[in-house]
């Protein structure tokens, strides 16, 4: 198992390298990185020349990429285009905030989706089942940003009408909160709800399908024939098996959730990776954008690895050679 993990880990290094080359090429060829800077009246010709030298913009793309890679690995992604601001401290800060949002949303989503999937599979074609399906389809059809806006409208109107502040509709924390944790929860609640809807929809569909496959299986019948109480049959025998593919799906879903976080954070002005990304894209500064994409790729690869490990842990039939 350990050997397998290490080998998978080593295997991701070339993948990551290739990824970085694609990201770099993609961002570089999609436009002159200096176009935005040149347009600014307060940036002199000399400054532009300095930038070209510092970022080796006069070289070919593979050479530029090699310099960038060196900068990324030895110097924590270096600085932004103008060279004023190191990228890593900003990225580190927003990563922590995004992780809070994403982990909370995913835990919530997984718990709710599991219950929904199990119940609707146990009562296939019941009112609850049709309700779950309809809810999921709503989840698939609803733009995250729109749902986030609607949440803001509702909560703000409640606040305006009753003067009761249940949840905040923007930012991550108040200036000087009395109770830090409560304040954080009040700030994160709406983004978490907005972000978790799509995941709930996705996972509950998978869980339902997976449970349906399992509830009619021979070993569940065996458990019943042994006289095992129905609740234990569901949890111990059926769910334990049905979970295997769903856990994998959830781990592989990280890229999608990160995409959702970009939109959610933008609407709720939450100082996370998503808002950072959108801002840097707005500035048309290629360097933070590339760093961001690299970090995201690393996360996705790590979660892929996690999916594999979880799969092997949950299913004893899988043996890693």
């Amino acid at each position: 198992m350990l050997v397998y993990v290490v080998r998978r880990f080593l295997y991701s290094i070339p993948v990551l390298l290739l990824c970085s080359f694609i990201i770099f090429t993609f961002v570089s060829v999609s436009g002159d990185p200096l176009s935005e800077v040149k347009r600014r009246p307060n940036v002199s010709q000399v400054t532009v020349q300095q930038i070209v030298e510092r970022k080796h913009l006069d070289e070919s793309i593979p050479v530029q990429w090699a310099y960038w890679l060196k900068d990324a690995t030895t110097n924590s992604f270096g600085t932004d285009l103008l060279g004023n601001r190191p990228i890593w401290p900003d990225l580190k800060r927003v990563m922590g905030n995004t992780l809070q949002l994403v982990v909370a949303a995913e835990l919530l989503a997984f718990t709710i989706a599991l219950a929904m999937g199990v119940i609707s599979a146990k009562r296939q074609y019941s009112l609850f089942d049709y309700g779950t399906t309809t809810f999921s389809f709503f989840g698939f059809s609803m733009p995250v940003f729109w749902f986030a806006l609607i949440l803001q409208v509702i909560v703000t109107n409640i606040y305006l009408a009753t003067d009761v502040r249940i949840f905040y509709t923007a930012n991550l924390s108040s200036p000087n909160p009395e109770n830090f944790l409560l304040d954080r929860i009040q700030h994160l609640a709406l983004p978490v709800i907005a972000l978790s809807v799509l995941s709930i929809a996705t996972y509950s569909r998978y869980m339902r399908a997976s449970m349906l496959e399992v509830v009619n299986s021979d070993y569940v019948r065996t458990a019943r024939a042994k006289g095992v109480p129905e609740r234990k049959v569901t949890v111990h025998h059926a769910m334990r098996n049905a979970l295997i593919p769903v856990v994998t799906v959830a781990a592989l879903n990280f890229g999608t959730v990160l995409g959702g976080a970009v939109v959610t954070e933008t609407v709720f002005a939450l100082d996370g990776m998503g808002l950072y990304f959108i801002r840097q894209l707005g500035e048309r500064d290629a360097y933070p954008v590339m760093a961001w994409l690299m970090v995201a790729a690393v996360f996705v690869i790590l979660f892929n690895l996690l999916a594999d490990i979880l799969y092997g842990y949950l299913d004893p039939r899988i043996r890693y050679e």
Partner: protein
Amino acid sequence: MSEPVLSVRDLVTEFKTADGIVHAVDHVSYDVYPGETLGVVGESGSGKSVTVMSVLGLIPQPPGRIVGGEVIFGGRDLLKLSQQELQQIRGGEIGMIFQDPISSLNPVLTVGDQISEALLTHNSKLSAEDARKRSVELLHAVRVPNPDARFDQYPHEYSGGMRQRAMIAMAMANQPKLLIADEPTTALDVTIQAQVLDVLQQAQRETHAATILITHDLGLIAEMADRVVVMYAGRVVETGDVETIFHAPRHPYTLGLMASLPRLDMDLERLQPIPGQPPSLINLPPGCKFHPRCMLSHGRVRCRTEEPPLAPTAGGPGHRSACHFKEELADGVAALSADVRTAS
């Protein structure tokens, strides 16, 4: 004869599908007596498995529905029991062995866990260590080698025969009064079948359990059963002791089954399949359900219009057949079966 262990009376089980109602079990009655092995034989879809699943309350409802009848076990009607009361009986007083041991064992739990679970479910006072000790004994009893180490292994680490023996261990864990074995050897290699049957017979001897053996394999019936129930299209068409059924069958369907049985003294080419296919259980033919495939019916009106009751034959005590013209078979089974051969 003593009181039966299990008595199925007029059991009717249906399944609702989009195409119509499937009459899977239609007024089936049979008894199982202490210590005996009752063989239930029939083609797939004849209702032999659905009958025992209904007995144990294991029919998925919906789409299944037990419409009527009663199942007397230990003085109680199992069909009237609550799920909790049924759970006590399942795996406790009635042990069940299924066809395919690889799909019937939970792949993510160790075999030991699954045997212990059978013990712990029916004995809440049992400690985990005692359950383990007893499970290892059971594995030993069904001749799983190195049972202590095998306890912690998963089903996929067992061989096919060993898995089925573990299933037997699970079924006999609580000293049941009745064992139900549903095609216990069908999914196994021929070479392993004998071993598993051996273990099954040993389990029967040790627990003194009555056994229902469900199979389509007449060879298995001949070897294991004391009495036989032949089912066709959800009905019992013939029942009697094993000698009678094999040597003096009084139902053309039973005779057809015999003719399709390979025998050492017969060329394979002379094997006679029963013509046609089992009827759709949604749209059953009127009259005798077997008449479209029957060699006795020959277009007789009575066969098409009147369903024959399961009635005693002249052959012997306890021998019953559901055929209007059953006694025609008495004139010489051999002659008739020769007829069948020449007819084609």
